């Protein structure tokens, strides 16, 4: 078995186990810390399929930015109260049925689509670009998708104003 397959198996196992721990922890701070482990291992999988830019985004944005936001929001609620509450609400049966349905759908799609090609032992990797992943993303973003990129800055502007207006109203 090639080394990249071993790395993939380890990373996906860590991602699945830590993902399971995220939803079962009663203490939300601990759940958030397990989420960091899950996000890191998914970042490793991105690196394995040669998506270096996505790897960097995952660590800088998700592990760095979004996790800080999660932990700060957790600090706004009273963690001690949520520790004593039941970790799952009464709709868990409906949620389980929906999740199983989704799993069946994914398994069917995999069986019909990807499995025959996996049997032919074609190594799965992102199409290699002569430039490299980040450079290719740069060329695509700033040459082909000019307007969407500029719209992103408008979206960020709206988020900025919205965040301040929403929070400021409380203590002005």
């Amino acid at each position, binding site marked *: 078995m090639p080394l990249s397959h071993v790395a993939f198996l380890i990373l996906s196992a860590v991602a699945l186990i830590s993902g399971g721990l995220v939803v079962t922890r009663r203490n939300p*701070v601990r759940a958030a810390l397990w989420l960091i482990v899950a996000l890191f291992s998914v970042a490793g999988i991105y690196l394995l399929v040669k998506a270096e830019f996505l790897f960097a985004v995952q660590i800088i944005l998700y592990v760095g930015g979004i996790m800080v936001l999660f932990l700060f929001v957790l*600090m*706004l609620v009273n963690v001690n109260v949520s520790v004593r509450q039941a970790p799952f609400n009464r709709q868990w049966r409906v949620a389980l049925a929906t999740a199983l349905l989704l799993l069946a759908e994914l398994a069917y799609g995999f069986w019909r689509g990807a499995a025959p090609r996996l049997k032919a032992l074609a190594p799965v990797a992102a199409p290699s670009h002569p430039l490299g992943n980040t450079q290719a993303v740069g*060329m695509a973003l700033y040459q082909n998708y000019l307007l969407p990129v500029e719209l992103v*800055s408008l979206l*960020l502007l709206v988020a900025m104003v919205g*965040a301040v207006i929403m929070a400021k109203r*409380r203590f002005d």
Partner: protein
Amino acid sequence: MLQTYGPLLIFAAIAAIFPLATLWAAKFLRPRFTPTGDKTIPYECGIAPESDARGRYTVRYYVVALLFVIFDVETIFLFPWAVQFRALGLFGLVEMLVFLGILAIGYVWLWKRGAFEWV
């Protein structure tokens, strides 16, 4: 693959081992006794802690965190532009200046509004 990311893997391994090894080594150096009384209280720069750290915090932290995420996203967009700076040329530079200009409007607004002030 391994040639490129081998050093990164070694770095990650050292980062994981170092704190564990330090804690393990400290076990042999420190005197053995169970702390009692004031020694079990979390150390807070010498001041006696007022309450549990798991209480509610002020909503101002939320604004700080959200603004951090927004400027973090802005930084992400700078990376792919920076690595292709020469290939994109003047067109790319103007494009990025427009991108940053729109966000600068927001930045000035935040400043005027006093979002960076704590009080």
